[in-house]
């Protein structure tokens, strides 16, 4: 058998090492040492790690389409927010009579707006399974409709980036409106329970964090499966010379649509995992800047590698948390400077630098494409 493996031996070892740290060591440090021990992981860090991992999943989803098919979507934040809203709607319905107005069916903001009945988009969201299906299906349907129109009309490059920005901006304006029925500019918040467990309870937070780790790991393997398949080679080829791929008999529009929809679903999953851990979803998540930030994470980590995207999201967000605490006014300048430096000096990102510095390691996790086969 020829063609690249899902992961090589080094790759699996690194993957297993991260899984052990994330799923055994972090939870152990968060629960086992006594509360005043120096080893004890502070409670606020667990949902913070969970949030970073959601961002990492988002970066992974963008790298799949940008790094491998050359589709620089600057609207992935919209799919993330839609997934988040689906989860948020489920969580709102779980509040029931514990809301300020004590209405068993209507969320507080609807009572406040003097609405009498639940609008149809909210139907069914009291069921967890339905809400989770929607968290994947709504982004998938939007991506399918948008992608079908764009790829069939052969919209590529910077034009595609611009219309994806317009898409997320339009959704932001729509969700800001009270009469859309999704809570207007306050969004959805004050969640109480998820599947009967208190969302603020330490064990629930630990469980949500662990589920996020598993989701990220599984999504990573799924993306690896796609990019190591023949379809992965078709995507890389169409990034080079799309017309040529068509003349070989492949429908490039369908290939692009497939990864675009898959990517949107991963973004939706990230959003659905994000909302219960941060406790709020509002239209700010649709802001065009958010989607651009995802592209910066991927560029900094190293695009076309999947691992680099995850790494980039974690590194940049750790830096963001530290710097916004130390000198909040400097963050945007630091992010901009980092992006310019990486673009000028490290076109393959952090991972490309690592590959250049340590060629003797030769791990295939890094984009040493010449070593394939």
């Amino acid at each position, binding site marked *: 058998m020829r063609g690249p493996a899902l992961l090589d031996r080094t790759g699996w070892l690194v993957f297993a090492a991260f899984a052990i740290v994330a799923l055994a060591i972090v939870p152990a440090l968060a629960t086992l040492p006594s509360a005043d021990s120096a080893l004890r992981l502070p409670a606020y860090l667990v949902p913070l790690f969970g949030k970073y991992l959601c961002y990492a999943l988002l970066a992974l989803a963008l790298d799949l389409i940008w790094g491998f098919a050359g589709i620089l979507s600057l609207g992935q934040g919209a799919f993330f927010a839609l997934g988040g809203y689906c989860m948020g709607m489920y969580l709102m319905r779980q509040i029931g009579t514990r809301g300020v107005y004590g209405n068993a069916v209507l969320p507080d903001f609807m009572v406040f707006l003097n609405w009498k009945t639940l609008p149809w988009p909210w139907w069914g969201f009291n069921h967890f399974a339905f809400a989770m299906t929607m968290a994947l299906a709504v982004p998938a349907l939007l991506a399918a409709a948008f992608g079908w129109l764009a790829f069939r009309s052969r919209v590529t490059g910077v034009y595609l980036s611009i219309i994806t920005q317009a898409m997320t901006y339009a959704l932001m304006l729509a969700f800001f409106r009270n009469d859309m029925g999704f809570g207007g500019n306050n969004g959805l918040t004050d969640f109480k329970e998820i599947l009967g467990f208190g969302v603020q309870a330490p064990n629930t937070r630990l469980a949500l964090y662990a589920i996020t780790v598993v989701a990220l790991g599984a999504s990573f393997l799924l993306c690896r499966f796609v990019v190591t*398949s023949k379809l992965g080679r078709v995507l*890389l080829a169409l990034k*080079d010379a799309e017309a040529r791929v068509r003349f070989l008999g*492949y429908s490039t529009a369908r290939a692009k649509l*497939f990864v675009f929809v898959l990517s949107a679903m991963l973004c939706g999953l990230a959003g659905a995992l994000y909302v219960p851990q941060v406790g709020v979803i509002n239209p700010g998540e649709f802001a065009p800047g958010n989607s651009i930030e995802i592209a910066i994470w991927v560029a900094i980590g190293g695009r076309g590698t999947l691992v680099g995207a995850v790494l980039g999201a974690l590194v940049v967000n750790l830096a963001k948390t530290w710097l916004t605490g130390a000198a909040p006014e400097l963050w945007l300048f630091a992010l901009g400077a980092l992006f310019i430096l990486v673009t000028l000096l490290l076109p393959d990102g952090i991972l490309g630098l690592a590959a250049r510095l340590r060629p003797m390691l030769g791990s295939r996790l890094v984009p040493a*494409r*010449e070593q394939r086969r």
Partner: protein
Amino acid sequence: MTSTALLYLDGVTVSFDGFKALNSLSLVIEPGELRTIIGPNGAGKTTMMDVITGKTRPDSGTALFGGTHDLTRLDEAAIATLGIGRKFQKPTVFENLTVFENLELALKGKHSITHALLHRLRAEECWRLDALLARIGLSNRAGELAGRLSHGQKQWLEIGMLLAHDPQLILLDEPVAGMTDAETAATAALIIELARDRTIVVVEHDMEFVRDLGAKVTVLHEGSVLAEGSIDAVQNHPRVIEVYLGR
């Protein structure tokens, strides 16, 4: 309308902003034929290939493949799957894929997205690709990125991709452009060998190469056929001398 011809073009007209790139072009290629097409710049050679491969839709006219398939209604991918392969003037190989992977993508077979996602190379496909690599003289470069090949090697890789695709009809757009004399002679020999069990249309400027191929020649001028016949016949044709060879 049906025809025994493999490729049947009749009254094909394409205009770009009023300029007629093809002006009621008619061309018939029989199965198994080797045909050379020459003509000055702007004669419509590339536009003709674009029409046959679905890249350009003609304003009017008929384009049939195998007597029944209407090429004016199909897209590039569908036409390629029908069995029409094209080699571009400028070698376009996938520079970020290895030589082996370039050939793998071109391999004849199902080209649906689900197939591409789930299919893993079978042993006989690997043998076929290895045989192809040997035939185009790139066996020892199989694992290298195609972007690192020399110009001539890229031309050969592209021919290898055509062979992997195994189409009934091959369109070659200036296959020896930029090749050395030795490479040109080798390419002519390869094309003649290929033409034994395939139909090939070659567009070329290099008259020496056209003579080497020894096939029927069609001269295009201003989007339609000016003359057709053996190389000697067209070279002595007064109108051809006037518009093309005599310049």
